[in-house]
């Protein structure tokens, strides 16, 4: 009996907390993807690279002598600018074409490849490290949790709530939801639709960037770091329902818990098959994902 409790306390609980700190970062990534999809109908294949650029942004700014905190505050702003320019300069160009689904998919895929190569050229292919700005651990219910992970959970959690409030409780959010549902009608009410698109894309890219900065001290930073991570985010978005915010949050937290708990029992090799197995099962049961699109609910 007591050994079971010990197991819960010393094995399962820490694993769940670790999963949760990765989970909030995955949710931030997935929110970016799902909001961009929900409004623009664009599957942003470069999202993983934007995440990597966020992490490298932190590396670069810290290299310039800034503190981690400044990097955390500035990187998302720079990422938003990058996102805005990408939308305005590239995506907008093919947006009105008839095959825009294919074109935007290929375009963002290409942007991702280019960005990855740029990172390789500028920073080299070797992994870099970002020191955690908070060290030590805190004792909670007889367990020690790394302070930085607690910090990531707190900041990530706050950001998720902030995104929620922004989308569902502000007039800006109402504009985005209206545009996601019916861009023609919202334009006829004066909503500057192409600027809203660019700003929303920028916002999603900034979220990926924040995610990259937050996880930089936990993982190492390398040019292809976004690849695996974006796959998780994509499965989260597909399971949660393309375009759904509620779905991204729930599926993101659940999937990362499944991953971290299952890794206690099975080899990490099975991580991806498990993830995609769940995705396939959910899709067989509910092809539209758990929840509906951004504009609908």
């Amino acid at each position: 009996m007591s050994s079971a409790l010990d197991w819960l306390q010393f094995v399962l609980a820490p694993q769940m907390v670790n999963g949760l700190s990765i989970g909030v970062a995955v949710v931030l990534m997935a929110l970016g993807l799902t909001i961009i999809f929900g409004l623009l109908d664009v599957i942003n294949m470069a999202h993983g690279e934007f995440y990597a650029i966020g992490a490298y942004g932190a590396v670069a700014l810290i290299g310039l002598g800034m503190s981690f905190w400044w990097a955390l505050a500035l990187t998302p702003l720079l990422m938003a600018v990058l996102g805005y320019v990408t939308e305005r300069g590239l995506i907008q160009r093919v947006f009105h074409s008839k095959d825009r689904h294919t074109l935007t998919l290929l375009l963002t895929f290409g942007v991702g490849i280019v960005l990855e190569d740029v990172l390789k050229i500028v920073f080299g292919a070797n992994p870099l490290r970002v020191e955690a700005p908070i060290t030590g651990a805190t004792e909670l219910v007889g367990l020690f949790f790394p302070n930085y992970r607690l910090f990531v959970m707190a900041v990530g959690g706050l950001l998720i709530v902030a995104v929620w409030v922004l989308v569902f409780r502000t007039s800006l959010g109402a504009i985005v939801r209206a545009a996601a549902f019916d861009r023609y009608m919202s334009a006829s009410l004066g909503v500057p639709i192409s600027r809203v698109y660019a700003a929303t894309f920028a916002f999603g890219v900034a979220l990926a960037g924040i995610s990259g900065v937050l996880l930089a001290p936990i993982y190492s930073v390398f040019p292809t770091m976004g690849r695996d991570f974006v796959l998780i985010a994509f499965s989260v978005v597909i399971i949660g329902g393309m375009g759904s915010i509620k779905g991204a949050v729930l599926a993101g937290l659940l999937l990362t818990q499944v991953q971290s708990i299952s890794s206690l029992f099975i080899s990490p090799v099975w991580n991806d098959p498990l993830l995609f197995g769940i995705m396939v099962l959910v899709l067989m049961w509910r092809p539209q994902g758990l929840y509906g699109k951004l504009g609908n609910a």
Partner: protein
Amino acid sequence: MLELRDVHSHYGLSHVLQGIHLRVEPGEVVGLFGRNGVGKTTVIKTIAGWVQPTRGEIVFESRILSTMSADQVSRLGIGLVPEDRRIFPGLTVEENLRLGFMQAPGVGRAEQKRKLEKIYQRFGRLAERRDQMGTTLSGGEQQMLAFARVLTGAPKLLLIDEPTEGLAPMIVEELFTLMRELVDEGISIVLVEQNVHAALELTDRFYLVERGQITFSGDAAEAASCAELVERISV
């Protein structure tokens, strides 16, 4: 105030508007009549900027609309009450209304609040339901919301597409009263309406659309042209 000169529009390869000429003077109500599928809604959409004309010119208060986007058109003071109302689901009545403020940017919060209260005075049923989701309203209430939403801007010209479709006679009556009030307030209207008799009471002039062209036009005050219009539609 508005003029269409030889306007052509396509949906892909199908050539829907084939040279539309029409004119709206300040303060005028212009009726746009015709049978199903002749292109009335497409005329409205082309003016509103949803469809880019492939040829011809649309001029509003000496500005050329033909190449403007829908949001630019709306900010010039051209408001739209679209076919099928197009209320945003997932947005409350009030959120739907507030969206209309984007038509006239630069209006301060206090002014917006005042405007909203005026709208609620005029549309009492919307006031009672301000926190309800827009799409949970009845058809008639949704049509009222579509009018109220566009009126939160300051439209000089309203494009109104089949406002009474599928609604009970009492509500139809109410909508015509509302439109008459809007005219009295100095708003010009382009009205598409199946109920030709009721519409002719409101309109100053009318156009008949057939196969993407204006084939007949007249003065609503002249009994003879009205009779001809009715005959040509009902054949």
